[in-house]
């Protein structure tokens, strides 16, 4: 594996985007940063700007207004960049599936590398999802 890719897996900085979630998933993401779970052990940091990020965490049901911003952010992210869908909403639109405002699930809009189910997923589930994503990339390359 290339050195820079190995380094990427050891220091993935995450950027967190909410596309119209009920805010519960976002709070669970912030829980991962608390002393109890401490994802800085794995070198993860919450990146302030998308230009610094390696992983784009998407929560929420991708409503019409935020889809434009979502695409723009994905284009602005410096590659290599991974996308993780967090919560039922971003995977299948969850309880908003019949809404006029949520035309497409996330993986029909941008490529998604990992799905973390749950409504909301527990912080343990988010961390295990991140670990599985890292293992997947290590295995395929």
């Amino acid at each position, binding site marked *: 594996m*290339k*050195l*820079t*890719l190995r*380094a*990427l897996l*050891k*220091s993935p900085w995450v950027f967190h985007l909410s596309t119209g979630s009920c805010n519960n998933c976002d709070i669970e993401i912030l829980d991962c940063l608390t*002393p109890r779970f*401490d994802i*800085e*052990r794995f*070198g993860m940091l919450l990146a*302030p*700007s998308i*230009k*610094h990020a*390696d992983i784009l965490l998407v929560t929420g049901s991708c409503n019409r207004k935020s889809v434009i911003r979502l695409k723009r952010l994905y284009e*602005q992210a*410096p*590659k*290599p960049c991974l996308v993780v869908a967090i919560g039922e909403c971003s995977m299948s639109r969850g309880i908003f599936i019949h809404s006029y405002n949520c035309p497409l699930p996330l993986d029909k809009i941008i490529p998604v590398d990992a799905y973390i189910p749950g409504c909301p997923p527990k912080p343990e589930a988010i961390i295990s999802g991140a670990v599985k994503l890292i293992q997947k990339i290590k295995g395929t390359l």
Partner: protein
Amino acid sequence: MTIVYLIIYGFLLTAVLGLIAAWIDRKITARIHYRVGPPFFQPLIDIIKLVGKETLIPKGASRAMFISAPVIGFASVVMVSALLWGSNNNLFSSFLGDIIVVLYLLSIPSISIMLGGFASGNPLARIGSSREMKLLLGYELPFVLAILVPVIKSGFSLKLGEIISFQAQNGAFATYASGILALIVCILCIQAKLGLVPFDCPEAETEIISGPMVEYSGTGLAIFRLMKNMLLFTLPFFLIILFLGGFKFSGITILYSVLKYIAFLLVITVIRNTNPRLRIDQAMKFFWGPTTGIAVIAVVLALLGK
């Protein structure tokens, strides 16, 4: 020969020590939060990762300035470090007034951050850069006044080497009242120079999403990060030379030198973890009011020989 000094002392040694310092800083922060903290090689891994990422240049940016700003700041830090190591270890005979050169070169990293922010054309970066500029004007006055104290105490010598040898004979300046006051002022000023919490309003991550850095990605960000990590070593090193007699590397004094540096790092980290962020006007008032006052008192005391 100068090139060798620049590469070995200015870059390699300082970068290694700076990365270790960055790890210690992050680890202490984590322990204060009751967290585990990052592994030992984390700062190095971050830099390697950033070098491997794509570098994006925003559309409205001024290209040449945007790319060269990190290099300017980095080069000045390398030069300062080489000068400081040179005077500390008597590698080469330095010139009269090198302390003034060091002072100038130490303000270039802030200026390079400012240039990069303005060149990127991002409104948040502009706000951050203008705050950085105000902060620079704020802390530079007390910093220069405080640095006058060791100059006065060593009999108006403007050479770092002479200041060190004077302290080797007559004891460190931090044992005098004026030295202690000046040291306190200097620690507050390097906190602002490093852009750490109470004075991190130029970068305020929760407010203007890391200010001047917002458009930087890939190698540019890596150079800025490495520059900041090296400054985390170089600035305390400068203060140790001025007030505590520099580093010595013979026998048991190595341990003493390391302890001096760790004590500085600990103070910086604890200040950064126990304070809220000041607004820019509060920071300016703080620097031009009480801090400058203390610095003036220190200079007067030094003139009186205390």
